[in-house]
């Protein structure tokens, strides 16, 4: 109450000056941020453009379904590689996702103790492991013991890469569900596992799926672990105990060959791989996408859709 009207006018004059400068600074920062975003997008965009440009000519029905032809010719295709990628991603997910989700649930819902803290720490470290190290590990543990390269080994290696990611994202998604829903469940006399599985997970679905997709996208492109576990082959899938082909491996092999036709096929394979990853993403988002607006509202209880 000691500020007089004159002083207030003084202060207001001050603000006016500052405001002009601040608006200018604001604009500049805006432009800088925008510029950086463009810089970030350009390489991404140009990669997509490049791959598309170079690879689109290779695509044909034969390309997508046939086995590789003799080296150097333009014959054959990447059929086995596509099949292999789908199989290996599927198998790895079958192993990695349940383990990851369960770990995530443990860490989030039952994880207020020392064991959980240690698990979380190791999980984070594990997530950063170079995939080649995990590949070597799978090699030692499965390939050497069994004596041959196999799909099991590949699935194992990829699952190892996958599950820390899934565990972490599952944990984070579950933690994002406000505690008040658990309280409501408790107050209704529900058992803890019922609350966790029927209420909390249901609310965290969006985040969990995003996490799983992230993991799938990651392993879809992993090459190093596959080199040491499934080795690669020119045949379609025959059994779990023999080597199998996969797109990353095929791309690698094709691009190292000096022949232009092989390189073209390599581009084609890369394009296919990108499409597959994008396709998985879109498909799952679409399937669960009906709940997409609701995912936002999960975060804020008591918020209405009406404006």
């Amino acid at each position, binding site marked *: 109450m000691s500020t007089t009207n004159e002083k207030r006018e003084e202060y207001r004059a001050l603000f006016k000056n500052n405001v002009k400068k601040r608006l200018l600074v604001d604009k500049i920062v805006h432009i800088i941020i925008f510029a950086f975003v463009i810089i970030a997008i350009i390489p991404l965009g140009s990669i997509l453009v490049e791959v598309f440009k170079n690879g689109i000519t290779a695509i044909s029905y034969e390309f997508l379904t046939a086995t590789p032809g003799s080296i150097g010719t333009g014959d054959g295709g990447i059929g086995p590689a596509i099949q292999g990628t789908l199989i290996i991603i599927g198998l790895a997910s079958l192993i990695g996702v349940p383990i990851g989700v369960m770990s995530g649930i443990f860490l989030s819902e039952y994880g*207020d103790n020392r064991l959980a803290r240690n698990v979380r720490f190791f999980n984070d470290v594990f997530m950063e492991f170079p995939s080649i190290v995990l590949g070597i590990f799978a090699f030692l543990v499965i390939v050497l013991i069994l004596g041959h390269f196999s799909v099991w080994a590949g699935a194992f290696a990829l699952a190892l890469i996958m599950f820390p990611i899934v565990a972490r994202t599952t944990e984070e998604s579950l933690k994002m569900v*406000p505690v*008040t*829903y*658990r*309280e*409501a*469940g*408790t*107050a*209704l*006399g*529900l*058992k803890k596992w*019922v609350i966790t599985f*029927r*209420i909390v997970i*249901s*609310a965290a*679905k969006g985040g969990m799926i995003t996490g799983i997709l992230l993991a799938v996208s990651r392993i879809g492109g992993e090459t190093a672990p596959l080199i040491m576990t499934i080795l690669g082959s020119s045949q379609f899938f025959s059994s779990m105990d023999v080597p199998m082909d996969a797109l990353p491996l095929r791309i690698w092999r094709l691009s190292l060959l000096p022949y232009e036709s092989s390189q073209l096929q390599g581009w084609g394979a890369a394009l296919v791989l990108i499409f597959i990853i994008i396709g998985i993403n879109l498909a799952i988002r679409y399937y669960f996408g009906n*709940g997409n607006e*609701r995912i936002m*509202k*999960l975060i804020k*209880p*008591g*918020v*209405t*859709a*009406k404006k």
Partner: protein
Amino acid sequence: MTTLSETEQKITNSIDSQISDAISPVEKKFKMIAENVTIHYGNTMGVKNVTMKFPEKSVTALIGPSGCGKTTFLRCLNRMHDMTKNAKVEGKVMLDDIDLYDKSIDPIYHRRKVGMVFQKPNPFPTMSIYDNVTAGLKLNGVKDKRILDEIVEDTLKMAYLWDEVKNDLKKSAIELSGGQQQRLCIARALAIQPEVLLMDEPASALDPIATQKIEETITELKKDYTIIIVTHNMQQAVRVSDYTGFMYLGELIEFRETKKLFTDPKNDLTAKYVQGQFG
């Protein structure tokens, strides 16, 4: 001589009678009795040796400044503190004749006798209105659709929500307005057929019209349920409750019939608080 029917009469409805202090609450049956309840959060004492008796089929309000322990105390009545890691509850909480903190008691089973409504409406976001109301039943194994339908209609009517939603029970619960969501939560709590209803500032997140509806609901419900409500709105306590307990720094300072507590508080601290002289 006062007859039995007169003792049943709600004190808030009567004008100040000439026998003002003669009607003793002993004549009323107590649904819940909390005896010597002390609650520790880690090293701090949230609630200090509180004893309260809650008469049946009436509304008891708990008032007090922020941090006085009223919500902490409320939550011990349905063993919500089991969920909190550092919380330690001592004392007895009797529901009818059973001590809820007895070692042999299954808290999950007994929580169904004491329903709870929270401050911010929290209907399960991925479920429809119908599923929300039946959540406590379905997720506990009740499958008979006929019974579920009946209970949904019954509780939504009790919560004054039936008319507004009866045509679209499959609608997602979070598409309702705040006040409707809170009434949905009340219906959900009622669906498990509790005997006591605990309400933690049920109208504080709502606009005045919604608040009024909640208060009307409470006034109707007290005919069948024992209701304990924590509120920071003293006018609400006056409007809605029959008995009021004033808590301060974890202790129960005064507990009396609402009208008496607000017109003639015995304790100086109570007088100061209700008149807005602090906190």
